[in-house]
């Protein structure tokens, strides 16, 4: 039987993979994709807590669906983040001709 802990474990593993990608990889595109992986892991925990709530009566008027509305907003923000992030990658590539995040060091003191 699949319980909430299975879903939470999957979310934790997916978040770890995304964080690993951000830490280890140097390609800016793959770093952005890893950020998307982490956002999806967060969505999965929202949906899990929405499906298997810890309280008997929902604390808000939305009922136990407030997790779903939160995921809706996370998806919208993630789409905006991807658009602006990729635009920044294009702008930096135009001036530096590289996507290696180690060479994006103009702001370094």
């Amino acid at each position, binding site marked *: 039987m699949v319980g909430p802990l299975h879903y939470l474990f999957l979310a934790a593993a997916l978040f770890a993979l995304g964080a*690993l990608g951000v830490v280890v990889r140097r390609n800016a595109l793959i770093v952005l994709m890893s950020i998307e992986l982490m956002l999806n892991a967060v969505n999965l925990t929202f949906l899990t807590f929405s499906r298997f709530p*810890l309280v008997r009566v929902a604390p808000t008027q939305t009922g136990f669906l407030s997790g779903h509305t939160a995921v809706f907003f996370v998806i919208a923000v993630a789409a905006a983040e991807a658009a602006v992030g*990729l635009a920044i990658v294009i702008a930096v590539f135009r001036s530096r001709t590289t996507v290696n995040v180690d060479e994006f060091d103009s702001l370094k003191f």
Partner: protein
Amino acid sequence: MAETVLFWIFFVGVLGAGFAVVKSRNPVNAAMSLVACFFFLAGVYLLLSAHLIAILQVMVYAGAVMVLFVFVIMLLNLKDEELGRERVTVWKGIGTLAVAGAIGLIVVRAMRDAYPAVARDLAADQLSTGFGTVRSVGRALYLFSVLPFELTSLLLTVAIVGAVVVAKGKI
């Protein structure tokens, strides 16, 4: 029974495709693996009876966001030498250990006692009310979070304009 089998199929799919994203050297392969990962995740969302979110996942992530990624990969048209060598350094090892330690700590300490038996009882009787369908989530969105919902449209407009301004060479 079917739920269990499907869950483990999706489990392996999500983690395998996610690992392929982090591992692959070529961004095109990473993007394709990311699409696969998002589709498997949509399956997991269906198992959690989040129907609307599963459809949104396929349409917004696997559709719109991934097309954006593939377009940018095509636009940059990276040569093989521009992809660079991924070197293994001490700091990357330390970073990997830190990530593994942090997530492992969360899994061991937080998940153990997160769920009393109460949680399982509730799960069955809330499904009868059309949980997670377009109708119920739409009602929740429009009745109780109208302002954030409308502000989302403003956010997306700002993102569109911002992306054009940033990516355009000269205004």
